């Protein structure tokens, strides 16, 4: 049977896919039908009645948004009857609508305005008193002006059908119908901004950009968000050199036009007043604002002096994984070629390297799974209970898979299933959730491995690898695993079988493993688990490791780590330079004398005391950053870099998808795109003559840099999982050293297990400069289960003291209840949590040197108020 259907619209024949709605078919036939409630992302609701059309053999007019095409259908979209009906609906919608277009932020891009212009009468027959609502707010960021609402429910439906949050609903009846949060409570949702974006009129608008622009003044630049590794396409909308708002186009980009709070409300960080805008140098303890010429000269002089006196290996560089591919490529070129040092590292060191290094070791590439695989999978095994917080749009893909593709979801995390507020919580949506003890992810992987090994392992597992796994697992009992994880043998077997026997199974892994203890080994074991389950190398399978930073994947691919040259060319152990922390320690020993930091603030990200001691020993510290930090305060040279909004280049997201970012505004003040700074420095390092830096012929554009970077990759770009997988797998199977130690039992001793992690509303430090986001969260809170709080008689918002055994430091924080936490655990979001991180035990990965310091056992007590 053919799936194509031919129908006639306004006497024009058109052939479309079966299941197409008349409104969509009409668009293809060149007839745009006016509508409000219809939206391609949403199921038809046919409530606005604007899109009525005449269909032959049907007595009444039909809503074209809800009517599917059928063979031989004859449709009139502009007959007299149709136009009259549309006029009628317009009259109804405009009857109570206020005449506030001049001050409405939607003016100029309002569907009601546009269709009124097209279909409305010049005068209104409405001569009655208008219905009015008071203006109210959906929480701090969204204004609700019900007088402008056309009750199309797109906001409510988006919140339900797409985000799955259900934070919005309908209230009251008839002409007093309103959209709003349940029982008029203040909105407590993901603040994705989707309701604002999908509103066809000015009923829901952003309070952050209220009255800041008229829509026709906005210049739009499509680019990629830099707040996490999801790689969402968004549009920066600017007036002059100011970002006024962010939008996203339906269906566009890896995110398909959906955004999260950080993407939608987080743009304020770019134009923040505290941005560094001029180069500065420290001269005889004076902090001087200088020209770029002077700054460049100071940098090259400083680097050359260090090389001359101590040799090139006395120089090190660390670059943020929020820089573009081109920048990271140039930075490593500057370090490796111009300076001649192997000591180059990047933000990927803070966990993501564990994924890339392990997956590349096993499969020859880390490009294993894409978002399409999430929807194609029948079963998802997710070791990222906080995915909504860390990677909201990847979490949205998971929600979409469960909802629209009947995908099974197994979550493994130290959380309860319970959802609170209207923020999605994947364990809550899971087919089956495995609640493990905090820090026992590794033991859980062991449990699944053992279960699958004893169940139905894939016959395609290389036999030597199979034997090695079997040998390693042998002698460890499910009882031992249960004592560590709190999960029974049966649960491991059920989920293990569910995953291994699924047609297509995909593993998603987040920071609990990448930044857990020995994350590299955990990733190898997970890779083995996917091989053992036969869930790799086909569509809908593989492993997707979630990146925290927008270009963590690219940072490694471009050569921004000591272990890889561009294109994942693995260096031999003896050729490798130092990792970030090793550089710090080398500085402390006096081995590294000059350090170049780009967007990195080790005083915040690494043990502060250790870093502070080390930085003191340096002869020369260069900081290139967007904002002043604890580290820039110590620098000899501070170079103002440009944010993602002020430059072009490419980010590679955690799928391995490389996407262009585009310059929306000029760099602030005298700041420069980082790639231009590196380009100049590379040239300046070559010459001893004093030539004005503008005369040095650097790269013409980022594209020229990109071309060179790709040429530098001997395996070509990109390396995908292809025919080489088997070869790589066989080699890994032969050399693999599979070890499993019996897991330590999890013993509760009355203390709390604290996890420091990410908040949905922040990403690193940058987001804390965005007013939109600080309005949602501007301080450090400690989350605890209400039952624990009740036991200790602690009220919400009450101050508590947290201390760590073996440290006399104590910090005081207000408490927030959270029912999704397990009893006996605490959670603090890291963005404001400098003090707490100083107290937690710190270790590094034995292979990759990834620093671990997010977890610890702490004591918590009420702050006693002395009377």
């Amino acid at each position: 049977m053919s799936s194509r259907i031919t129908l006639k619209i306004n006497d024009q024949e058109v052939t479309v896919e079966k299941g197409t709605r008349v409104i969509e078919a009409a668009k293809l036939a060149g007839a745009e039908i006016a509508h409000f409630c219809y939206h391609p992302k949403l199921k038809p609701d046919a409530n606005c009645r604007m899109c009525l059309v005449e269909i032959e053999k049907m007595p009444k007019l039909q809503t074209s948004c809800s009517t599917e095409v059928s063979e031989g259908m004859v449709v009139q979209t502009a007959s007299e009857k149709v136009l009259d009906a549309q006029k009628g609906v317009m009259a109804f919608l405009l009857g109570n609508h206020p005449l506030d277009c001049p001050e409405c932020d939607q003016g100029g891009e309002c569907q009601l305005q546009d269709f009124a212009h097209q279909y409305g009468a010049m005068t209104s027959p409405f001569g009655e008193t208008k219905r009015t609502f008071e203006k109210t707010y959906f929480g701090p960021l969204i204004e609700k002006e019900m007088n402008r609402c056309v009750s199309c429910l797109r906001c409510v439906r988006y919140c339900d059908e797409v985000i799955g949050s259900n934070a919005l609903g309908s209230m009251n009846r008839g002409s007093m119908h309103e959209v709003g949060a349940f029982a008029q409570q203040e909105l407590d949702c993901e603040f994705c901004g989707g309701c604002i974006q999908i509103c066809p009129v000015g009923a829901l608008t952003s309070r952050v950009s209220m009255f800041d622009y008229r829509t026709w003044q906005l210049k739009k630049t499509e680019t990629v968000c830099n707040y996490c590794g999801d790689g969402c396409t968004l549009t920066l909308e600017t007036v002059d050199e100011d970002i006024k708002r962010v939008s996203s186009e339906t269906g566009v980009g890896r995110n398909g036009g959906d955004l999260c709070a950080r993407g939608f409300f987080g743009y304020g960080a770019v134009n923040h007043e505290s941005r560094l805008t001029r180069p500065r140098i420290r001269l005889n303890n004076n902090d001087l604002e200088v020209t770029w010429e002077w700054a460049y000269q100071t940098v090259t002089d400083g680097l050359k002096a260090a090389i001359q006196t101590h040799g090139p290996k006395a120089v090190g560089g660390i670059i943020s994984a929020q820089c573009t591919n081109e920048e990271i490529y140039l930075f490593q070129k500057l370090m490796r070629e111009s300076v001649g040092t192997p000591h180059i590292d990047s933000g990927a060191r803070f966990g993501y390297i564990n994924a890339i290094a392990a997956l590349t070791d096993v499969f020859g590439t880390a490009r294993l799974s894409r978002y399409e695989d999430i929807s194609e999978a029948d079963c998802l095994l997710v070791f990222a209970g906080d995915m909504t917080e860390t990677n909201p749009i990847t979490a949205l893909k998971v929600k979409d898979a469960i909802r629209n593709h009947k995908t099974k979801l197994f979550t493994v995390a130290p959380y309860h299933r319970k959802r609170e507020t209207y923020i999605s919580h994947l364990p809550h949506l899971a087919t089956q959730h495995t609640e493990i003890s905090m820090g026992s992810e590794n033991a859980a992987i062991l449990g699944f491995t053992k279960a699958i090994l004893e169940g139905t392992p894939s016959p395609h597992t290389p036999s030597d690898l199979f034997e090695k796994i079997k040998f390693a697992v042998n002698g460890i009992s499910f009882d031992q695993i249960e004592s560590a994880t709190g999960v029974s043998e049966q649960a491991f077997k059920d989920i293990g079988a569910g995953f291994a026997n699924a047609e297509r199974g995909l593993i998603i892994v987040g920071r609990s493993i990448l930044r857990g203890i020995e994350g590299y080994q955990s990733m190898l074991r997970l890779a083995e688990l996917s091989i053992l389950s036969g869930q790799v190398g086909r569509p809908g399978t593989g492993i997707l490791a979630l990146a925290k930073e927008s270009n963590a994947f690219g940072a490694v691919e471009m050569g921004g780590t000591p272990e890889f040259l561009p294109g994942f060319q693995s260096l031999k152990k003896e050729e490798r330079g130092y990792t970030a922390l090793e550089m710090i320690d080398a500085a402390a020993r006096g081995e590294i004398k000059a350090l170049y930091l780009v967007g990195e603030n080790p005083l915040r990200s690494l043990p502060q005391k250790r870093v502070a001691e080390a930085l003191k020993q340096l002869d020369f510290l260069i900081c290139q950053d967007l904002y002043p930090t604890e580290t820039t305060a110590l620098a000899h040279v501070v170079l103002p870099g440009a944010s993602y909004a002020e430059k072009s280049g490419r980010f590679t997201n955690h799928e391995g998808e490389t996407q262009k970012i585009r310059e929306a505004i000029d760099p602030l003040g005298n700041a420069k795109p980082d790639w231009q700074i590196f380009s100049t420095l590379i040239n300046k390092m070559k010459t001893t003559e004093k030539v004005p830096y503008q005369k040095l012929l650097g790269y013409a554009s980022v594209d020229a840099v990109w071309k060179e970077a790709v040429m530098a990759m001997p395996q070509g770009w990109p390396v995908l999982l292809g025919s080489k997988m088997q070869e790589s797998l066989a080699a890994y199977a032969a050399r693999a050293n599979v070890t499993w130690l019996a897991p330590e039992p999890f013993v509760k001793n009355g203390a709390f297990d604290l996890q420091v992690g990410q908040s949905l509303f922040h990403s690193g430090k940058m987001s804390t400069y965005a007013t939109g986001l600080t309005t949602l969260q501007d301080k450090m809170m400690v989350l605890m289960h209400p039952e624990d709080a009740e036991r200790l008689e602690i009220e919400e918002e009450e101050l508590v003291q947290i201390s760590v055994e073996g440290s006399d430091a104590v910090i005081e924080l207000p408490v927030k209840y959270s029912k999704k936490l397990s009893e006996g655990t605490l959670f603090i979001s890291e963005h404001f949590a400098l003090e707490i991180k100083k107290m937690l035990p710190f270790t590094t990965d034995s292979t990759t040197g990834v620093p671990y310091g997010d977890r610890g056992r702490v004591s918590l007590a009420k702050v006693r108020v002395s009377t």
Partner: protein
Amino acid sequence: MPKYELVLLKNMAQPGYTGSLEAYRQAGGYAALEKVLKERTPADIIEEVKKSGLRGRGGAGFPTGLKWSFIPKDHKGLKYLCCNADESEPGTYKDRQLIERDPHQMLEGLAICCYAIGAERAYIYIRGEFDLGAEVLENAIQEAYRANLFGKDLFGSGVNVDVSVHRGAGAYICGEETALLESIEGKRGKPRIKPPFPAIHGLYQEPTVINNVETLANLPHIINRGAEWFASIGIGKSTGTRVFSVSGHVKRPGNYEVPMGVTLREMIYDIAGGMRGDKPLKAFIPGGASAPMMKPEHLDIPLDFESIKEAGSMLGSGGITVMEEETCIVWAAMNLMEFFHHESCGQCTPCREGSGWVLQILHRIEQGHGREGDIEQLENLCRRIEGKTVCAFGEAEVGPILSSIKHFRAEYEQHIREKCCPFHPNATLSMVH
């Protein structure tokens, strides 16, 4: 003695009839259920009901057997029966009496229907205000469960039927069958867009039949006495008896069960005892608030689906509201519109915005602030609501307005011309919204 043989009201007309299970069984109750479970196939029953000509008593008059036959036979999942007991149409109170006074009659019908359509799960969606009805039903259901007339393996047939009562929360729109389904699902009660129809995607997206209380109550009698007997009552395509609720300016308002096809004259002047105070009849509504008004000239029209429709109104829910000479028609129309405006769910534009607009104009006219062109405006607005809404509420709300203008235009004109209501010269009304 009633003039016509009572069928549905027969038991409760017996002195001392309590409606208990015991009383109902003594009157021959549940024999029909036993008979169908033991002797008849579901297909048989559907055929029998089709032959009887039984049509839905909720308002639309859709042939019941035909409705049942839309349920997919080979459906693998669950099927549902929802009994619509959300009787909220102003002037209609027949289901209430059927529930309160003889609950087992409708429960037996419900069980028969479940068997016929293969549904193991039934819900009775009862109007929120029916406190007593809900209590009576709950008790009756418990009695029936104890006697294994509901639950598992009824009469040893292997057939299971579970039933529970779901109470509404006071929205008229939940009587619309798809809004009713939404409400049972725990959502806001608003009509769904159709297609798909409930027979295919109903409650929880499974095949579902929704039948009115009176419709179900007829089933035991059709089984006991046969389709031919049922079809012999009434006229034309309107078979069986009908319980009419007569209200307004008559001497004896109340529920009366008569064969379909008696005339309105007989209904008002004979059965309901004639006009109160023997005043002249001005207008009447034949089938609940949403049925267009009729005039004395229509008195000899028989009360059956087709004849009333032909005369421009509808038999609807069987609520006959009678208005005498001194009733202000504009006021009456406004009164009805106040109800509809209050009950509009707000889902679709024409009804949400239109009902308030129409009501504002009616308020003005009634208060003596009518303007030239208001009547045309009312007609225009109604035309733009009618046929353009998600559910039949749109037609329902404009019916009384358009019919009152059609039959009593002069009275509207008088209100506007004289700048006051001839019947309520000092009318002051509150603001709409």
